């Protein structure tokens, strides 16, 4: 039976097909877990990029075809010939003693689009392996299921799980380079977050069938190009902290149903697409102002860092700017001006035009001192550029 909240989420999304959680929305969950707008858009499977574009803030996350091609080519190369290159790095670089290895692509089951069938097949195969019948098998594209905010989500299967010495390991294949043993920490972090979601989902699967969750390692294997070549190399990444953080985040996140309850009955992010047209020709028919007004009714927690993660960030930044919110300036300034929310208020206190409330008096004194210093300097040297 479907809980009623599913109906509300479907209504929020409207006519568009449901999008599942992906690397970016998981990273956003980790980076800004308390943002209501993001939580609702993700939980309802709404197309954030299309919504942002329609209300005038096209998302900046286009992917270069070069990066795309490179990623695919590298992954294909690593997996070629029954994952020959993958096995080579596991054996040579990571010094793993692997027996004869089988390769099983779980993507080839059930046909595209039928996630339930694919998930059933993944479950069946992985449980069988967990019982000991599948040692040394590489499972490509396992489709797993994760609970996010009380709602189920399928995880995009673009990695490999394998089992050795009675433990499952998650293998991530990425096309950013490992140069002299180091890789871009932001990229490693994103990859680890994604893998952590898999670890949690795989553990949940085992737990659900009464098996030991310790059988899933929280060390992931990252496979990436070595230095400036196309040859793969591998490194272990310790994901314990991120698995713990994400686990806690998933368990503590407000239940989406609580958030939904606070929304006006008629609120929807529907783009009103004409689904009878081919996908490429579908254009939103809903008036942009109407959609913008709907989005604006949901509170967002903007941080400059969102610009790296969230499709809605430019919309949220515009709102923060319009309110003269100090969120625009980022955490360093916020930290210094704790308790003061807007530029207007900060300057009002600094210039003595606003009377500080009791708890603002310290801050006001510090601001007035700083303003006095700046005035003296500006007088002597000129201020603006």
């Amino acid at each position, binding site marked *: 039976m479907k809980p009623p909240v599913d109906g509300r989420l479907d209504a929020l999304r409207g006519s568009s097909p449901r999008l599942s959680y992906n690397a970016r929305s998981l990273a956003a969950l980790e980076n800004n877990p308390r943002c209501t707008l993001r939580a609702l858009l993700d939980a309802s499977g709404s197309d954030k990029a299309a919504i942002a574009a329609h209300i005038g803030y096209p998302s900046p996350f286009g992917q270069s075809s*070069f990066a795309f091609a490179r990623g695919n080519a590298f992954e294909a*190369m690593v997996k070629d010939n029954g994952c020959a290159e993958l096995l080579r790095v596991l054996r040579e670089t990571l010094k793993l003693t692997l027996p004869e290895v089988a390769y099983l692509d779980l993507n080839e089951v059930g046909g595209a689009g039928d996630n339930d069938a694919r998930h059933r097949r993944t479950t069946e195969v992985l449980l069988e392996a967990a019982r000991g019948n599948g040692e040394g098998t590489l499972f490509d594209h396992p489709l797993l299921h994760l609970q996010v905010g009380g709602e189920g989500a399928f995880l995009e299967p673009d990695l490999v799980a394998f089992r050795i010495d009675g433990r499952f390991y998650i293998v991530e294949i990425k096309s950013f380079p490992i140069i002299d043993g180091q890789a871009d920490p932001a990229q490693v972090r994103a990859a680890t977050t994604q893998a952590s979601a898999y670890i949690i989902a795989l553990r949940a699967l085992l737990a659900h069938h009464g098996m030991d969750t310790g059988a899933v390692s929280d060390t992931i294997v990252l496979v990436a190009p070595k230095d*400036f070549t196309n040859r793969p190399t591998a490194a272990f990444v310790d994901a314990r902290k991120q698995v713990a953080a994400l686990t806690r985040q998933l368990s503590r996140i407000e239940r989406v149903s609580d958030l939904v309850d606070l929304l006006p009955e008629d609120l929807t992010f529907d783009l009103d697409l004409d689904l009878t047209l081919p996908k490429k020709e579908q254009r939103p028919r809903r008036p942009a102002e109407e959609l913008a007004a709907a989005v604006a009714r949901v509170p967002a927690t903007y941080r400059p860092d969102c610009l790296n993660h969230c499709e809605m960030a430019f919309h949220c930044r515009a709102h923060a700017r319009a309110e003269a919110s100090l969120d625009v*300036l980022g955490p360093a300034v916020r930290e210094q001006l704790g308790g003061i929310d807007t530029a207007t208020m900060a300057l009002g206190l600094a210039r003595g035009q606003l009377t500080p409330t009791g708890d603002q008096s310290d801050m006001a004194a510090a601001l007035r001192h700083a303003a006095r210093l700046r005035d003296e300097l500006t007088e002597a040297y000129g*201020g603006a550029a």
Partner: protein
Amino acid sequence: MSMLSALAHVEAMQNMTAVRLTAFRHHRLSDRPLVIIPLTMAGEAGAPLAVMAGTARRDMTLLVVPQPRNRDQRFAFAADLGRVVMDYIDSYRQDRRGEGERSQYTDVPQIIVPNQGGVNALADLGRMCRFRSTTGPYAVPEVVPEFGMWLTFLVDTAEMAGTSMLLPLTALLTEHWATGQSTLEDQNLASLMAWIAPPRGVSIAQALEEAENPDVCPPAGPSTSPEFDNRDLAPAIKRFDTAHALGDPHTLAAAQTELTELIAGQVKPTWRLMWAAISILRSIPKAPQTARRLDRDCRLFTNHSDYRDAGGLPQRKRDTAISAARRLSQLERALADFEAAMAFDDPFVLADRRSGGEAFTGTVVESQPNRTAITAKNTTVPRPRVTVRTSDPLRLAAGTKLISPTMPKGHKAVIVSVLPDGDTTLVTVEVTAGMGRGRTPKAGSVPDLDKDIDYLPDPGWRPNPTFPDSDHTPWTHSADPDGPDDSAVPENAAAEEWGHDN
């Protein structure tokens, strides 16, 4: 961040204009900097796509790798760029001054890139080139490894505070100006320049919007915009590849010209912006101690130059235990010295420290200019005391050693007591140095009554740490102390595997 800088950012945001943070420019700007804009190909490991380089606004060279995935083209490009950069560097390896140990070059090269990403791209390029062999199966031109070693040297110096041989322009600009946007957005040169100097007749708000539109302001690199990649670059590279395969020189030349023009269109707006920024930066007076830092740059440059002349090996892939420890100590010292020098030279920076209670300015309200003390060696020395009234939120404790930019060189003092007095604070300091050799302080060496005076903590002198010899890594820092040190040149230097071509 201090309260003062935070306030500056808030002012900038509210008034929609950049606000200055310093009175001076604390980095040296060369009269003839080599501006380099590196572009890389998305998704490839440090694959150069193009570079625009030149020492004057109207004198630029554009080098393009038509097919960045092709190894030969990559190193042909590296050689071309290497020659440009080495000609520039060599022009600074002419004039030396001083004898023997002290002999050093009198000026240093200066490479300016748009942003930190530009520094990283040069680091990758340096790493890619410096181990290459000029003989054997994958031989590269002579200049390639040399260029790689010099790039690596420059990238290494860029980590050291106050050096100016390789500088990201955004860092120079944000040192002097506060904008009404976040640190993250300040990394975008066009956004930053929109705050500081929007195009004539364009409002800052509009300039900001344009700065984020890749069709108006293409990214300053090293990444190109995905739209450009997909819409323009990918088809152009494809046409080049086809022409290359057909072997028809006319089609090939046409395809190459088309590519070059496409990329020129992407990089030129940044080129113009960089020179505009450099010209604005030139108009800011340079801080007094910039000269001292140039001297250190000359020393570093001379050392590396002599090492290269002696045919030294390329820098290792990663630091050894001892070189890492030595470098850490150099970096820490450089940072502490640079911060102290900035505060000493620049009233804005001093004010920053004052607002955080780490320095103070006040008026002398009491003075005992003739006070003396008897030292352990039983000699009488002048130890005048003065009391300064300040309204700064001072947090320095008694015993803190001080220096003062408002007193003659060599002046040193130590805090004796700090007493709150109403809204102000009375700080009594004892002058300990800078008074001459006599029993009475020389004229002007003790602050007079009613004089306004600045004090900040003395960064002090620290001994140079002594580490074991580099060929004797002790047992705590090496797995096998008796074994030979790992070789400086990786064995695959000649031919790092390229892997499958795709």
